[in-house]
């Protein structure tokens, strides 16, 4: 097992990352980190390499590229997701099937809502025309004043969700 560089070790210690196994890609990270970030033993407190410390060395390269490379090849970075051809195809199959399943579920839900709405509308229509009172009952039932007012405030009739609302309680609200 390759020992981590002091900086990385201290970092890992701070973030409580257990380092008991060898890093995932030891060879690659070794090469790249040694050129950019890993300090050599005599200057263990400096992160700049010897060349870039000198004043004469002019262009030091793009800092962003350096950082990207550093984090990409960091031993604590998970390795990139690479699939073989068949594995990718299997993955794709599962992905498509899952999407299809979800789409079917959504469609079924939509249809169910549509069915409910239509049956309610049919009932209302029946009430309006078939009740024999000239539609009076229907008109009365369509009056919405006072609905929710004397029971539960309408503000609480939000969709039921997994978590609470973003603002837990509406302190502004007062019964009028």
């Amino acid at each position, binding site marked *: 097992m390759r020992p981590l560089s002091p900086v990385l070790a201290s970092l890992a210690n701070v973030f409580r990352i257990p380092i008991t196994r060898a890093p995932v890609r030891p060879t690659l990270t070794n090469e790249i980190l040694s050129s950019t970030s890993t300090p050599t033993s005599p200057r263990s407190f400096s992160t700049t390499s010897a060349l870039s410390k000198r004043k004469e060395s002019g262009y030091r390269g793009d800092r962003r590229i350096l950082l990207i490379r550093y984090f990409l090849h960091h031993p604590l970075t998970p390795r990139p997701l690479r699939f073989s051809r*068949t594995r990718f*195809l299997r993955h794709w*199959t599962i992905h498509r099937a899952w999407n299809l399943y979800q789409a079917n579920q959504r469609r079924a839900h939509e249809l169910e809502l549509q069915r409910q709405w239509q049956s309610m509308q049919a009932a209302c229509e029946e009430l309006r025309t078939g009740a024999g009172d000239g539609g009076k009952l229907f008109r009365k039932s369509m009056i919405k004043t006072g609905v929710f007012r004397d029971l539960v405030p309408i503000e609480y009739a939000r969709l039921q969700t997994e978590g609470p609302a973003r603002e837990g309680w509406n302190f502004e609200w007062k019964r009028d």
Partner: protein
Amino acid sequence: MAHCERASKPLLQCLQKTYTKALPGLQLQSTRAFQSTALAREEAQAEAKSVPFHKAPDPALVTSPQLERRLLRQGIAPIGSRRRRAALQNASNIPFEQLPYQCFQEARKVLVADREEKLRDITAMSEKIARLQAVPTEEAGGEQVKKSKLRAMELHLEHLKILADINDPLVKKKFEDGQGDLSKPIYRYLADRKWREYRRKILVQRITQMKVIPDVLPHCDPTVDTKLYFNRNQIQPGEFVNAQVSTTAPKLDVQLFEGGEKLVTIAVVDSDVPNVEKDGFDFKMHYLAVNVPISATATKVDLSQLSTDSQVVLPWLPPVAQKGSPYHRLSLFILEQKDSKPLDFAAVKAKETERDNLLPRTLQARYHLKAIGAHLFRSQWDETTYEVMKQIGFPEADMELRRKRVEPLPYKRRNPSTFR
């Protein structure tokens, strides 16, 4: 042989297990009735073979150098690396659909069920279309209504056909390997999508930025993929082509993404012929052919091989750019003939004899053409142009175009009273 087998062990795990030459005992269940029957055929071959391996070595499995040499002497090259072949020998040759992964198998069940549902939809839809066609026009609510209804239903049917196959991993794999059968709608759909992702964007950008679109034709929405080859070299849209190279007529690869056959007119126009007297530019038709059949499977069109007595109206004229003239845009247009009906070749040939100033706009209006594909290359003066000019008898080969001096504005002192 032992060492390469040992070495191939890690490879074994990551190698594709799609090797479809199944073990003799393994039975393939063909769940995909509508797909091509390639699997079943291979299975039959595998079962018929009972010769020992060293007598008839398989080029995909052979590992020993002696057998390889024998194969090479027969003229068959072994497939892949020796390490890969060794790995394949030990691989359990399970076909892709039967790979023992639970989630994958569950997913396949969902997809297969969906496909069956789509197939039922397809049969229902085609029956519906047949029923509507049987209904007389008056009952269906008039000519126009029936037509539009039929059109919409056919579009929906096409859409369903694509939906039935789009979730198939083997279709995807075949298309990616370039083995897709373009006579089937699903592969045509995939090819069209791929073309629109990149190549069409490039083409449209080139023809609009180089002003081919308002200059040569007022509008063009490319729907066929056009590739242009000079001497087997593909020319990207807008590339500069050497004069020597373009002396021979190019070859085209016109990929249609719809079913059926189409008759098209192919025209190559130079829109930048300098005209010194007019102080402007002229057009010149470098090639014109009518009644060229293209379809999704027959894509190759060799402009020099088209028949001169029924298709080629104006044969290929090598494009040359005079020295000092700005670059010439040679734009190629694939123009769809109306209802895919053939034009009267003799009449066209009699009418279009003059190459100079034969505008594509005129052609379009005269023969009711619609641009469905475009391509573009450019030519400019280079070291071979002079020889090509001599060959084709270009009249003013030794004349050069120089910039005309524009008289500068006379010096005028502007409003001197305000100067301090």
